[in-house]
């Protein structure tokens, strides 16, 4: 149905889109040399450390590697619920 896609604009992502997407994800892992499992471990340990000081919403926490040029950046977005009661 290529000609229909050509006529109406296709809905499905193209294999080109998929390739770019997959590359971006795999290169983030390659560049920091971390598997998804290791990122999960990092996330768990972050939760443990930060929870000692403030109460956080671990469910909605986001830990991501982003790229700007060839520089990798680790971004953690952690919703804080409140201060720990007892210190």
């Amino acid at each position, binding site marked *: 149905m290529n*000609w229909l896609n*050509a006529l*109406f604009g296709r809905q499905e992502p*193209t294999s*080109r889109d998929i390739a*770019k997407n997959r590359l971006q994800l795999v*290169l983030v892992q390659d*560049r920091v040399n971390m598997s998804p499992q290791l990122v999960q471990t990092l996330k768990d340990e972050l939760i443990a450390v930060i929870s000692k000081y403030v109460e956080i919403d671990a469910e909605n926490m986001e830990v991501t590697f982003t790229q700007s*040029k*060839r520089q990798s950046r680790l971004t953690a977005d952690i919703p804080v619920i409140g201060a720990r009661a007892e210190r």
Partner: protein
Amino acid sequence: MGDKMSGTIITITSGKGGVGKTTATANVSTALALQGKQVVAIDADIGLRNLDVVMGLENRIVYDLVHVVEGACRLRQAMIKDKRLDGLYLIPAAQSRDKSAVSAQDMITICEQLRADFDFILIDSPAGIEQGFKNAVAPADHVIVITTPEVSAVRDADRIIGLIEADEKGPARLIVNRLRPDMIERGDMLDTTDVIDVLAIDLLGVVPDDESIIVSTNRGVPAVMENNSRAGQAFRNIAGRLLGQDIPLMEIEAPTSWLHRIGKLMRRP
């Protein structure tokens, strides 16, 4: 060879094999010589030599890079003069040896000697990230990374770009080889912008997929010698950019069908 020069040493590498390192080295070297430069191309792929056949000089080899390293001949004796062009030379790799026959320091010593007599020294790197790659990059002033618009080749290019930067040989510049406009048009191939987005390095050139490369390799005459080869033109453009000429990127366009044109009109906001 006249006055003392101070040539530029450029290594062409890729990580993945089979993406066009040797073809690019042969064509860019030949194109630079066509512009009147003194050029020597070195095949650093010890044990798997190929630059000689691509340049059509395989029958004239007496000595090779390993002979020079081992002192079995003088550097001059291993330099094969091109049949067609003045100012173009090849130093072939040894075919019956392995990477360990040459060290990074050997490559630096040889290239520094050549710098005095040539405008450009181009090194055809072996694939991979091991010793052969390190030897090829060690003497370089500039590194060119070549890739095709495929996931595996781009991933390996990224790895090699990281190693080049760690080696303080960066920033590398990129050639995207074997682009197929028809496939890009229908969304089945990464285009140059995608590859540059992902790799985040400067683009040196784009080369269309072109049957004339296979024909010219069959004959042992680099495509830049053929006026009507699209890929040959792309490599001549790359050589021009290395000489500091301001040459726009080659338009890589698909033959558009009437349906595509109507489709584009209909999608216009």
